């Protein structure tokens, strides 16, 4: 086959992507701000910006921080959805600011941006991630094996590898856990992210500590608190089928018992 005519074959999508004249539009970002050094009240602040709709919400936040108000505070690093720094609630839903294009969330209306829910707000969009990581650490998220180490690699069939592929994608962004109504209630629930990371090892054919992890998640604040609300699955920026993973852990617990 030849793609010698590649340039004449342009799809509309490619043409659109390549169009260079930026159609700037005015968007309003309505940011929920909280700075304990100024006030103990959080407040909504509107920012009007000239943006290209193909830009990300993160770009808009940067524009505010760099050009309008340097005190606006948020976490970010990679800017393309792999480091998990910038989970926040955009238009009422958890997303990564760097993976959300303005054009995809109706820039005609004010775009609300607020911190993720259920964790202490430290400043503006920055929340205390410690409880989140604590839950993660509590599920023993590391490979545990018995006996002597082999000299070469442990063998694992492609099917066995595939079994837990989905849950290896997690970037610990907390979009799922902080979208879970059960987690908001009392923050004691392990939360979907911790379960996802337990799942990653429970179903790894090389691991030998599934029992212990299952036991941890069998407890009062473990998997049984999940009410299958699917907010986690909808929120996950990595497209992990979070609820499905949780259900698999529940079923593993039941089959273990009976």
């Amino acid at each position, binding site marked *: 086959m030849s793609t010698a005519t590649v340039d004449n074959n342009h799809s509309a999508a490619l043409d659109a992507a390549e169009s260079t004249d930026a159609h700037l539009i005015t968007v309003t970002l309505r940011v929920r701000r909280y700075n304990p050094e100024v006030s103990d009240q959080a407040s909504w602040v509107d920012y009007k910006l000239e943006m290209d709709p193909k830009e990300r919400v993160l770009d808009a936040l940067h524009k505010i921080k760099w050009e309008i108000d340097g005190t606006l505070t948020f976490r970010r690093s990679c800017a393309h959805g792999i480091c998990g720094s910038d989970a926040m609630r955009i238009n009422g839903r958890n997303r990564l600011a760097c993976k959300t294009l303005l054009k995809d969330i109706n820039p005609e209306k004010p775009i609300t941006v607020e911190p993720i829910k259920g964790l202490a707000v430290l400043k503006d969009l920055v929340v205390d991630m410690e409880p989140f990581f604590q839950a993660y650490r509590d599920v023993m998220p590391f490979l545990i094996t018995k006996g002597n180490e082999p000299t070469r690699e442990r063998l694992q069939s492609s099917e066995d590898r595939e079994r837990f592929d989905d849950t290896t994608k997690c970037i610990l962004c907390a979009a799922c856990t902080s979208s879970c*109504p059960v987690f*908001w209630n009392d923050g004691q629930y392990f939360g979907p992210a911790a379960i996802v990371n337990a799942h990653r090892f429970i179903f790894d054919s090389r691991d030998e500590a599934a029992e212990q992890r299952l036991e941890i998640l069998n407890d009062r604040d473990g998997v049984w608190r999940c*009410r*299958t*609300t*699917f*907010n986690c699955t909808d929120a996950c920026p990595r497209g992990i089928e979070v*609820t*499905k993973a949780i*259900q698999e852990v529940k079923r593993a617990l039941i089959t273990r018992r009976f």
Partner: protein
Amino acid sequence: MPAGTLYRGREGMWSWVAHRVTGVLIFFFLFVHVLDTALVRVSPQDYDKVVATYKNPVVNLLEYGLVAAILFHALNGLRVIAVDFWSKGPKYQRQMLWSVVGIWIVLMAGAFYPVLQHSLRILFGS
């Protein structure tokens, strides 16, 4: 402290809210229902008196609401069970929810006359 916005969850979240609300509602109804039924043990007259109030159009309408709640809770409960035990359940949860809503509407339409016939007769004669 002005709260943040309401979380804009999707089908899964709202169906759970509805499931929870209906569940709690039914529980309280059941509680009352057992108490009133207990009257059969005490005095048939009193029992009939209480039951008579059920035949009042307003309470009859509430009863229709109760049926709605139970039906939704039951159907959605089955959906939740499917999500739990059927490996493809999580994938099709949304479709299942819309099916639940569809069936629920059909059944509620079907139950409209039978449940409310008493009131309808009172109100509009027959």
